[in-house]
């Protein structure tokens, strides 16, 4: 049986990907998640739902996003041909909106009036506030105080879009604490509130649902590369925080054994420091935020603080389907440091005229190692998950430039 069909059949039963995934949540949330699961599977098979989803993807988000041949980057690295899947060109500048759009359409059909979401970089918060504004729904975003500081621009955008930003001041004041706070708020308000989770993580059905909404990336990519090259790529490359842009790109290719998949996680200041978010490189299986997966934890099982220059990768867990793909050997996972990501950020800006998100820069950072070793007839597709405008302050600071 192929990996693909195995996950497809597994998901219908209990949301397990091999030993990973599941639903490790307080009793109160079980009926709420069951209701959501029911609704999701119902509308997944509903042609009207799909029509509406596709309509907004096209006319509101601007899909399909181009698959761009990065000619100068290819030359510079001197190896495999490099294509960029331009999710940075989506409305609001990241892949996040594919998922928020899908979930908000579901929320409306379920009769929920309020949307809540967690956010790290603020990208998911903005993407959520965007669709909430578009449908006139009440929206509250949970964001760690540390991230609020790092991502002032996105906080302002969310407020402009009419969302309330709830600053979380507990724990490490980052994404993981924002998730805790959002889940807790949901427990108390599930009656009228829809929790719009931003990555392929969390209890079932979220990892499946987010993957399905993000898979539009991989489906388009497949068609586009067949058009351009008449064949499938040799490598898919994507950054991995929770893993939604990566699984969205990978999933439609799982059955194509000739396509290798590589996820790149954040090595922060280095894998041998305690300041990184390299869940696969340094974590082990555990349970976090309602699902079983690789988790960064200490020898006692306490979740350890994480660090990455990019707030969107600054998370101690990883989507359960990625843990399954790693365990089965179908995908492999590498890491890039803050510094390597900044270098890639600068490189792509300089030679392609594209300023990438720091998250996406982690995927780009693995290119020199991969591309230059490969022959020129090989093809690599990198998921350019977002644009980097939000990160220019961070990078300027890193380069010693004072913008204020």
């Amino acid at each position: 049986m192929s990996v693909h069909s195995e996950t497809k059949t597994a998901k219908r039963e209990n949301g397990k990907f091999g030993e990973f995934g599941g639903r490790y949540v307080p009793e109160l949330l079980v009926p709420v998640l069951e209701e959501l699961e029911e609704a999701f599977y119902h509308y997944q098979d509903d042609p009207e739902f799909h029509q509406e989803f596709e309509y907004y993807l096209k006319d509101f988000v601007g899909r399909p996003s181009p698959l761009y041949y990065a000619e100068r980057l290819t030359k510079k690295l001197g190896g495999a041909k490099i294509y960029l899947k331009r999710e940075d060109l989506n409305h609001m500048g990241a892949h996040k909106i594919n998922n928020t759009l899908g979930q908000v359409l579901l929320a409306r059909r379920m009769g929920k009036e309020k949307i809540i979401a967690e956010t790290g970089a603020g990208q998911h918060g903005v993407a959520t506030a965007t669709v909430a504004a578009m449908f006139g729904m009440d929206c509250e975003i949970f964001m760690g105080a540390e991230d609020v500081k790092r991502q002032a621009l996105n906080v302002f955008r969310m407020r402009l879009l009419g969302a309330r930003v709830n600053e979380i001041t507990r724990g490490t004041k980052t994404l993981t604490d924002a998730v805790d706070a959002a889940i807790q708020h949901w427990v108390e308000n599930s009656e009228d509130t829809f929790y719009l989770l931003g990555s392929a993580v969390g209890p079932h059905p979220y990892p499946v649902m987010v993957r399905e909404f993000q898979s539009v990336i991989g489906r388009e990519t497949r068609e586009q590369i067949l058009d351009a090259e008449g064949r499938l790529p040799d490598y898919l490359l994507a950054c991995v925080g929770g893993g939604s842009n990566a699984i969205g790109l990978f999933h439609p290719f799982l059955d194509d054994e000739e396509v290798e998949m590589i996820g790149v996680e954040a090595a922060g200041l280095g894998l041998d420091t305690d300041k990184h978010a390299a869940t696969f490189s340094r974590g082990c299986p555990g349970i976090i935020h309602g699902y079983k997966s690789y988790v960064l934890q200490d020898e006692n099982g306490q979740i350890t603080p994480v660090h990455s220059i990019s707030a969107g990768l600054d998370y101690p867990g990883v989507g359960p389907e990625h843990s399954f793909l790693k365990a089965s050997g179908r995908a492999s996972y590498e890491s890039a440091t803050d510094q390597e990501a900044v270098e890639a950020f600068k490189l792509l800006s300089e030679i392609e005229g594209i300023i990438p998100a720091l998250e996406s820069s982690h995927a780009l950072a693995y290119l020199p190692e991969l591309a230059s070793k490969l022959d020129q007839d090989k093809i690599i597709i990198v998921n350019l998950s977002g644009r980097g405008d939000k990160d220019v302050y961070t990078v300027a600071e890193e380069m010693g430039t004072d913008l204020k």
Partner: protein
Amino acid sequence: MSRISSTFESLKRKNKTAFIPFLMAGDPNYDLSLEIIKTVDRSGADLLEIGLPYSAPLADGPTIQKSSRRALDSGFQPRQVFELVEDIRRESHTPLIIMSYINLIHKFGMENFITRCRQSGVDGIIVPDLPPEEGEELKNISSQIDLIWLLSSNSPASRIDRVTRAAEGFIYAVSTPGITGSREKISLEIKNTISKIKEIREIPVCVGFGVSRPEQVKSLAEFADGVIVGSAIIEVIERAVNYPAGDIEDAETEEKLPVSINQQNLLDQLEKFIRNLTEPL
């Protein structure tokens, strides 16, 4: 029959409602938490619920989060709870239940965890982020230890049925949809859930989450077999430990523990608080 079940039997014969205090192991440190638990036990506990401090307590409100943080900051780690239980067991036979998030048990190794529970004298475990659907493995290896499941006022009939039939020791009924923490008002909606449970099977049902006052204890005692109180007791400890009024992050910037907690004073206050709470029972 388990020690938990026989305790409920004997309370029932006396027509009494169980009082179950919840305390965090290691808060504010090993030694004082041992004294606190012993004092609370002597002051009127019928069963004891002891939590393992965890870095990401999903079902807990600010009071218990901070309690966890204090325990961890003092250097206490979950595995020390077994030593703590052994120390408690030197003078007490009160049924004792451990509350632990699943990741701690997973990291420990389930078999290992259960073995240590048995050896140290633990009678039951509550895992707040492990619904029965995910709990098969733990259930299969935990003979002699009661696995306590939770139900709430939003649990549909099919879940009530399933959980009630599988239940061991007692059922933990969550008073109000939400997280732990003292509440002004407790909804009595949970009463319906309890009647449904009792139609299926005669098993003790204890109500927790938010209970903080004698009046609440009194009204719950009219239909519940036990009342669980956590945050309200821990607030007494929090005040004594005397962190600034603010949030955890304020606490973290302050020195770890004030040099002198007036230990005897704290234990006296706890005793008084518990006696006052259990007065109506």
